[in-house]
């Protein structure tokens, strides 16, 4: 399928085994830095509170991570392009409201089956596609195009419900967050499936490889025959599909749909992507990095409550950890300009 089989060397987590020469030790350390940060964080928290390693707690962390992970996976592709997607919160909300409107709810008499999940993902994809079209054809920077689409999406959600909240009583949908298989709710398995799909797209499809190529050097990619605009639009639409899935998970988890259901999730997602070692400049990173980054953010939140850190210092600690993780993960020595 893919003609580009060689792994790019700028990737932060290596997927092929490299020799353990002296020079590669350093880069290896850098590649695995996010993982090391996660392990160190886990061991520190576990040392103070042994309950951290309790299987129940690990399952809780997995549940908390499912939604941010799904959003961050979508965002990873866009960031690999060197663009940014600020529309996540709005798109997740539209998808969540779409789902809640079509299953059994407190607002209307709809009672369609679980095929509405496809409708929600389609809604997310459509908005993501809109992001891509605006960005590419009107040549608006992704920062502004996606910010605007995000506002439009939140606006759609608000107008649709006139500011109200829908309660979802559909047991089939709610069971996504409640029914457990092998100790983990279905939502976690869906999150893992999203990870597997993201990994496949990233690693084994032309789209995934081209995204990295565009992010790494758009002019070179273009000269090599990569259809840059098509790649950009497809990646934004793909990100939208992931946000659509996140919307479904949010409805299952909170039992409600409203315009602000994903408030604050955008910041968590971007933090997770960057902490995982993906550079905002584009051209590197992978879904596995994003998994590690998401876990760092979620484990930190869990750990601070477990250790009884006073709420007013939690944010400060979060900020310090982000700086530490990013410093370790990204190699800036060859970068002359940082912006």
């Amino acid at each position, binding site marked *: 399928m893919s003609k580009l089989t060689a792994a790019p060397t700028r990737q932060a987590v290596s997927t092929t085994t490299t020799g353990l020469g002296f020079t590669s030790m350093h880069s290896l350390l850098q590649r695995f830095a996010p993982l090391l940060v996660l392990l160190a964080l886990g061991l520190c928290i576990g040392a103070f509170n042994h309950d951290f390693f309790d299987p129940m707690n690990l399952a*809780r962390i997995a549940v908390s991570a499912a939604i941010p992970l799904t959003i961050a996976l979508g965002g990873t592709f866009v960031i690999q392009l060197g663009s940014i997607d600020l529309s996540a919160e709005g798109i997740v909300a539209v998808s969540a409201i779409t789902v809640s409107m079509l299953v059994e709810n407190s607002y209307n008499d709809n009672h369609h089956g679980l095929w509405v999940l496809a409708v929600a993902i389609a809604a997310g994809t459509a908005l993501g596609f809109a992001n891509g079209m605006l960005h590419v054809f*009107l040549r608006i920077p992704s920062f502004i195009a996606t910010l605007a689409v995000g506002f439009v999406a939140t606006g759609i959600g608000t107008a649709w419900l006139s500011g109200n*909240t829908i309660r979802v009583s559909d047991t089939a949908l709610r069971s996504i967050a409640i029914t457990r298989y092998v100790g983990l709710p279905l939502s976690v398995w869906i999150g893992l499936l999203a990870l597997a799909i993201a990994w496949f797209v990233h690693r084994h499809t032309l789209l995934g490889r081209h995204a990295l190529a565009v992010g790494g050097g758009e002019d070179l990619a273009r000269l090599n025959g990569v259809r840059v605009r098509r790649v950009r639009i497809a990646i934004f639409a793909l990100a939208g599909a992931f946000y659509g899935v996140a919307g479904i998970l949010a409805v299952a988890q909170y039992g409600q749909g409203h315009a602000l259901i994903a408030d*604050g999730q955008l910041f968590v997602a971007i933090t997770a992507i960057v902490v995982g070692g993906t550079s905002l400049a584009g051209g590197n990173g992978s879904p596995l990095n994003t998994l590690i980054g998401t876990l760092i953010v979620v484990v930190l939140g869990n750990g601070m409550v477990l250790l009884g850190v006073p709420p007013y210092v939690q944010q400060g600690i979060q900020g310090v950890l982000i700086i530490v993780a990013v410093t370790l993960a990204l190699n800036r020595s060859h970068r002359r300009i940082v912006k």
Partner: protein
Amino acid sequence: MSKQDQHTGVSRRDFIKLGAGAAFAAVGGGMSGLSFGAGQTTLACSFRSLTNPYYTAFNKGAQNFAKSVGLPYVPLTTEGSSEKGIADIRALLQKTGGNLVLNVDPNDSADARVIVEACSKAGAYVTTIWNKPKDLHPWDFNPNYVAHMSFDGVAYGESTATELFKAMGGKGGVVAIGGIFSNVPAIERKAGLMAALKKFPDIQLLDFQVADWDSQKAFPIMQAWMTRFNSKIKGVWAANDDMALGAIEALRAEGLAGQLPVSGMDGTQPGLAAIKAGELVTTVDWDPYWLGGIGLSMGLQAQQKKLQVASLPKDQRESFCKATLVNKSNVQTVMARATAPNADWNNLYARVAGPVVYR
């Protein structure tokens, strides 16, 4: 970028032209729709946003009152920006020549002074809800600053905590989720919780965390508490319904919803439904529908000189209002009121609980 890119698609200039044309048409259409007839008083409310059920109900009450007196009504939203809130009000004062009755929930306490001064200067009548500086009083701006209405966050924080502690049997560990640290209601409600804790010596506060009024933030906090305290938790106090529901969903994921008493505040629709389902013990309904309409009613009566505000007692100018403590026994009544709201807009001071207390 290659030249090829610049030739395809809509050019930016075309797009701007198109957008400007559309905007012009929309504004023109909107202006003709809003008729500010000469001599006719305009009613307006200013509040945060329409994305929130509380303000949606607030707006609905104001609309209903405007309909009952047959006057035009304009909702203004601040979207969390004090500048926008004040600028919109100034523009409306200009447009109506001061023939305006305004009911405002200021974005920030400090905004109230600017708004009141602008209204007083223009001859408009204004009431404020929830926020105002401590040293700004309605009687300093007779007769234009008609009234300020608020609720006693400390008292109601204590009421919900008391109700929760009773449901816990008066003993055991409780965890508490608060709102944004610097928010006045968050501070007041927490003070209420602390006051209730003093009255129940066998109740132990295990931990207090803040979840920024948000169910998504309350969810992982509740999860971590379950790891940290496990079966020591006998109850959960939350400073609003949304966070209480986040905690309930975290409990539900482990099959514990409805087994631990949880308390909320604000009387949102999902909160009331959770009380009915037996998952939430108590909440407080402020009745925003009533607040939205009654503020305008006071202002309009003052403007029409039916009400001599200068001669009113101070607790009717600056009042803590009565809210409804909701639990399983009265949830049906409150839900019925929320679905088919109505209020007596002429009974202005029926819900005055007392003067505002500054702590």
